[in-house]
């Protein structure tokens, strides 16, 4: 008789706020086999393009995910703008960049908290989320929404931020940076954290690249891909260096995200310094006719919005390929042969976001 334990891990499981299921086959606590199952939250909203005009579909696209809602909305808008050849005002581009980077801060802090929770560091979780509330406050002050911002629209943005407010945000970020320094110090230097993350879920550069790992998951393994380098929105006008690390374990992925927090703060402050005055939107007439693969760098990595229109108000197809979907093959590889205790850590180390994955 085999000495195995089969654990139905999820879909309802306390470490997973989102439902995903793993059939874990364990020997003692070693994972000898793992078969994932997703689809619990598939809604099929890509099909809503048949019922929502492309302008209202922004609201749907935004609700692809409650974590980087803004980036989803923006990527969709940029895609449509590319097809329709719309030139967005520069101030709008800067605002989009600022909100995108705030999204990244919010998402990474949220992730750091959940990651800490995955190895049972409750206090760290609480601290990360405490800091994150300060980012959400900025969102609410500038957009009216904490997690679903709803400020992007085709042709620009719906709301401006007053210059005084921008200045205040910039100085506010200085104090946030200090708190984040304290926080990331623990993630990077605490021995018990290192015990739980070092050499856990190791993914080599070759594997990462060919399995399609993107975002911090890929960059933690040394795959230097960051779509912001393509210069959409205002990124082309700002200075930043891509963060990568070579070890490919959970710690590296954490390290990449920790460092990205600082680069995001830096980007926002740069953008606030450079933002020009001017209009925030242009008027949009007509309907998209054509197709475009619009890509953007989400907190979790490369996002692809494929948009195809036929000149009517209803799109033919919107296809959203989210980073998590691309990272799932890597996840399966990493889970083989790990310990049960590592399962939550590894699953979270790719920062899974199932909502957008299943759409």
């Amino acid at each position, binding site marked *: 008789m085999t000495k195995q334990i089969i654990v139905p891990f999820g879909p309802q499981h306390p470490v997973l706020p989102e439902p995903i299921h793993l059939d874990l086959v364990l020997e003692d606590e070693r994972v000898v086999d793992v078969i994932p*199952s*997703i*689809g619990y939250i*598939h809604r*099929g909203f*890509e*099909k809503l393009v048949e*019922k929502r005009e492309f302008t209202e579909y922004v609201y749907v696209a935004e609700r692809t995910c409650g974590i980087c809602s803004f980036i989803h909305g923006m990527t969709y808008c940029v895609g449509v*703008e*590319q097809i329709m050849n719309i*030139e*967005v005002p520069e101030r709008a581009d800067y605002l989009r960049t600022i909100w995108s980077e705030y999204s990244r801060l919010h998402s990474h802090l949220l992730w750091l908290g959940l990651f800490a929770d995955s190895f049972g560091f409750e206090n760290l979780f609480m601290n990360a989320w405490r800091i994150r509330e300060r980012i959400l406050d900025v969102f609410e002050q500038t957009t009216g929404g904490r997690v679903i911002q709803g400020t992007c629209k085709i042709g620009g943005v719906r709301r401006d931020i007053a210059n005084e407010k921008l200045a205040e945000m910039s100085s506010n970020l200085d104090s946030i940076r200090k708190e984040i320094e304290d926080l990331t110090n623990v993630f990077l230097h605490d021995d018990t954290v290192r015990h739980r993350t070092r050499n856990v879920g190791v993914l080599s550069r070759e594997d990462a*690249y*060919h*399995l*399609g790992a993107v975002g911090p998951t890929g960059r933690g393994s040394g795959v230097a*891909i960051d*779509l912001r*380098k*393509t*210069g*959409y929105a205002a990124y*082309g006008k700002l200075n930043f260096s891509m963060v990568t690390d070579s070890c490919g374990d959970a710690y590296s992925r954490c390290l990449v995200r920790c460092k990205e927090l600082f680069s995001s703060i830096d980007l926002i402050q740069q953008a606030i310094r450079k933002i020009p005055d001017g209009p925030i939107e242009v008027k949009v007439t007509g309907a998209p006719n054509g*197709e*475009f*693969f*619009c*890509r953007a760098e989400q907190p979790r990595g*490369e996002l*692809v919005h*494929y948009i*195809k229109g036929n000149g009517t108000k209803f799109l*033919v*197809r919107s*296809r959203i*390929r989210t980073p998590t*979907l*691309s990272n*799932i*093959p*890597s996840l*399966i590889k990493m889970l083989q042969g790990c310990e049960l205790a590592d399962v939550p850590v590894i699953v979270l180390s790719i920062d899974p976001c199932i909502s957008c994955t*299943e759409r």
Partner: protein
Amino acid sequence: MITQEQSIIPIDVGKLIGSVEQCRNEGYRLAQIGCTKVGDNAFEINYSFDKDYVLKNLRITVTAETEIPSITGMYWGAFVYENEMHDLFGIQVKGINIDFKGTFIRTSVKYPFGVTIVKGEKP
């Protein structure tokens, strides 16, 4: 305005494996596989590959009955897209390394993107 560079290269189903192999050899990364219904029984499938931020899309156009070969031999992780394509569009993919046999994304309507669905109550 910055446009992300991309190209679409229509190919035959029969050339798919060869072309994908070539991509792999040239060091392309698989960015996505996506399907679009373009006619009553016509589906466009885009295989998007990325290298240095340039997107190369191989496009095949097939019918629901066409059995297309899996590219999981070259790109192990392609199974997520191929299963998805099967579950949502009803595209038959042969030889997937991890074949969920229709359980990857379980839907209330079979092949929802392959058919027209009428739903929705009045407010």
